[in-house]
């Protein structure tokens, strides 16, 4: 093995280097505020470099693998993280955070390294390492607001439930090892898994991942953690963390567990119905915008499962496409929420009453984001949902699609309630005009462009589809 082979791991290596540089910068730079532009620049370069060159291949005897599809997934996550850190600047500059600025970036990048390893894993050991690396710093991030008891509480909640779900997942993995004597995906693909013990192992395994994606009934941590965590961390949790878990889930289902397709189709069917419906019904009653978005993201996860039920390349492509759109859309919504929270600490939906009169641009962006989440054309979310449904329709899941479209209609109600608050409801004292810094504005422009362009510009979907074929 040549040392140059390590270029295959460029996403992980570069990010690790960036993290280490930030550690040094933390010591060397006195004015911690200067770390923010450094971190953003470093990550921006990393994001751009991720697109350059083709780095397919294997390392460590197949423990780590990379392909065009996996690179695409990592790049999608990178773009999302870039938007998150752009939006986080304003919040990091607050007085109470000024000593911990570099920690935010270091922890954040560490979790991303973990997710990258998780997606790239070639065996269950590497997968588990990546998963834990993505989870433990995440708990620290959630607890970032040390002065806020709620933040610590949610961190505790997250780490406890994560440990619990990891334990179940490990049990599942160990059952599989006991049966087949190998943890390598490549060995497992070759075996026929259709035995009761493997199915049990699979169910335990998928419960662990379902926790990450917050599928019902593994979603109980979601709303509390989303509410307690700092908004920018919530945004990260709801799109990047979830996106990475969806990616690895889809890879595993389509490769390792291919022979269990009839089993996991049934499981996903039930999970999809539960997740969409219960996520929606809880979202209806929320008054806190962060909890509201938490349940909305639970419901969205249910729709993603419809794409997986497509059980072929098109299903894979629609899932990745939807996650890509979801990243832009949800980050637009969270960006607005975070900008408003930073300026006024208001997080109730009723605080948004009359927002359009004082902050027209942010209201419009929020409306676009919500409509895109609801799947209204011509915004990208419509294309994302439509294609997910197309994937499910291929296998004839029309009753499931009917349940899904009913849920889309229900979700429209609560999205419209926020639109109504911003545009229609009267308010004597609306939130005053907020001047966003240039970083936030750039992130808004990126999100808005994504919401409009991703749907119409069909080459993006075609590209995703073409790399999915080489799964």
């Amino acid at each position: 093995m040549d040392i140059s082979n390590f270029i295959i791991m460029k996403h992980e290596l570069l990010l690790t280097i960036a993290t280490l540089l930030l550690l040094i910068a933390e010591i060397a730079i006195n004015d911690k505020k200067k770390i923010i532009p450094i971190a953003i620049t470093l990550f921006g370069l990393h994001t751009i470099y991720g697109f350059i060159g083709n780095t397919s291949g294997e390392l460590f005897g197949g423990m780590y693998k990379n392909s065009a599809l996996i690179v695409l997934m990592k790049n999608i996550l990178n773009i999302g993280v870039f938007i998150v850190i752009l939006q986080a600047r304003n919040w990091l500059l607050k007085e109470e955070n000024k000593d911990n600025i570099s920690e935010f970036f270091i922890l954040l990048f560490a979790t991303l390294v973990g997710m990258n390893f998780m997606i790239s894993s070639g065996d269950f050991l590497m997968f588990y390492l990546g998963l834990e690396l993505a989870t433990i710093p995440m708990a620290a991030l959630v607890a970032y607001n040390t002065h806020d008891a709620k933040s610590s509480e949610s961190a505790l909640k997250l780490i406890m439930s994560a440990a619990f779900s990891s334990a179940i997942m490990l049990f599942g993995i160990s059952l599989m090892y006991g049966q087949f004597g190998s943890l390598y995906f490549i060995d497992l693909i070759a075996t026929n898994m259709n035995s009761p013990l493997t199915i049990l192992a699979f169910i335990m395994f998928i419960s662990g991942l379902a926790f990450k994606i917050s599928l019902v009934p593994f979603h109980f941590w979601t709303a509390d953690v989303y509410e307690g965590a700092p908004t920018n961390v919530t945004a990260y949790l709801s799109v990047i963390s979830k996106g990475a878990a969806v990616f690895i889930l889809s890879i595993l289902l389509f490769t390792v567990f291919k022979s269990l397709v009839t089993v996991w189709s049934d499981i996903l069917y039930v999970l999809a119905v539960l997740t969409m419906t219960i996520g929606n019904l809880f979202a209806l009653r929320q008054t806190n915008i962060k909890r509201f978005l938490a349940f909305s993201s639970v419901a969205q996860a249910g729709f993603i499962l419809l794409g997986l039920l497509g059980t072929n390349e098109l299903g894979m492509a629609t899932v990745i496409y939807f996650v890509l759109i979801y990243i832009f859309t949800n980050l637009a919504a969270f960006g607005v929420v975070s900008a408003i929270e930073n300026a006024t600490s208001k997080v109730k939906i009723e605080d948004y009453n009359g927002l359009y009169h004082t902050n027209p641009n942010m209201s419009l962006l929020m409306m676009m984001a919500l409509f895109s989440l609801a799947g209204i054309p011509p915004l990208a979310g419509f294309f994302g949902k439509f294609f997910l449904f197309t994937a499910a329709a291929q296998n004839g899941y029309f009753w499931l699609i009917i349940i899904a479209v009913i849920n889309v209609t229900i979700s429209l109600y609560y999205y419209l309630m926020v639109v109504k608050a911003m545009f229609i409801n009267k308010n004597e004292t609306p939130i005053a005009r907020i001047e966003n810094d240039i970083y936030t504005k750039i992130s808004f422009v990126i999100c808005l462009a994504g919401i409009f362009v991703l749907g119409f510009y069909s080459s993006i979907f075609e590209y995703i589809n073409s790399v999915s074929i080489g799964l």
Partner: protein
Amino acid sequence: MDILTSLVIIPILTVLALLFVKDLKQVRLISAAGMFIELIQSVRLVFMYMAERASGNTSEMVFQKSYQWFESINIQYNVGVDGISVVMILLTGIIIFTGIFASWKVTYLAKEFFISLIILATGVFGFFISLDLFTLFLFYEVAVLPMYLLIGIWGTGKKEYSAMKLTLMLMGGSAFLLVGLLGIYMNSAPEGAPLTYNILEIAKHTIPIEAQRFFFPLTFVGFGVLGALFPFHTWSPDGHASAPTAVSMLHAGVLMKLGGYGALRVAMYLMPEAANEMAWIFIILTGISVIYGALGAVVQTDLKYINAYSSVSHCGLVLFAILMINKTSFNGAILQMLSHGLMTAMFFALIGMIYGRAGTRDIKKLGGLMKVMPFLAVMYVIAGMASLGLPGLSGFVAEMTIFVGAFQHDDLFHRIATIVAVSSIVVTAVYILRVVGKILFGPIINDEHKKLTDAVWHEKLPLIVLLIAIVGMGIAPLWISDLILDSLQPIVDKLVIAAN
């Protein structure tokens, strides 16, 4: 650029232009100019279409343009028109143009109002030119959603409730439609051949009957919700009553026609076997729509509610005619869409003008308006006459054709249904004449009303345009029938073959 795409591009450009102006006058000017060009294009399209047919082009759709969009699932941007879409586009052009003038007095967030209104119109134009089910559905939803903001922000009365009810019901309908369209797509080609969303391609293939039985009701009801199919019509009275004038005009005038058009072009045309099989269920439902709407209008006292219920009745008649499955009744359905679109737009415009002056729409508080605003009053009478089917105006032509078509069925069920539907004309006469007599003639009830003024130029203009269209259609119906009839032939053929 081809003329069909320009119909979508012009409104989009108008919206973009509106984004950059602030001044109210400029907003009005740009909207009016944009929609005037749109109207010109619609009229031009009619003449181009006639010239194309006269030159011997007999293909089912003309001016077809097709671009590959999403290659892997075979979605295309595919546009083309036949006689049916051409007249619907003309109708839309007229209504949106007059709608801009009917909204001349909107001052609260005027820019946003006109932008939403024109986005809505973009969706409608796109819907009528689409030959690809995906883009058709896309434009359909684009047309529905701005309604929420339009009613919620600029509406009157219990506007928030109405806006939410309307949006959710229509979106719920379109949700079923989505499932139906996906079902059509999945069955759109024989085993092994590439699937397609192209309406013309699908029409060449027979969708398996089991699939038709499942997806026809979904598709038909999906469109039917927008066409006020009983029992999914309840959004209509509240929605129309709360909406601002131009939105009521556009919604009753054009949007409800999307339902009828889609039901004919997509549901019936692509799934003819199931359509023949299940028509009786929907004939009963639409029959109820027709009668229920008319009776509902009789008991209402709010002018807008009266007209909204009347729309349920008239649009029910459109679906009723479509379900009668013969060429005459289809012709009647299209004529009725045009006729109702024009006259209901005129009604809503007039009601908006009266409401703007008198401050009430309650017929018990209005009287003798003929004395103070003769122009508006005369217009109201004419619209009323068109609505109850007076010969020489558009309503007579349409309803006559429908009933002649419906009566061609000689079995008892169709006869009874037809007779029930015909009786709605009598009820229509009751509520129209009651309103005309009450608010226009008789003594002036409120002394304040003596000070009211008659219409000004930006009110007269849309009314006169609509009047010309109504009278024109009433006097020269064959001119329009000629446009429609040839285009109906392929649809009729497919349905009649399927029936046997």
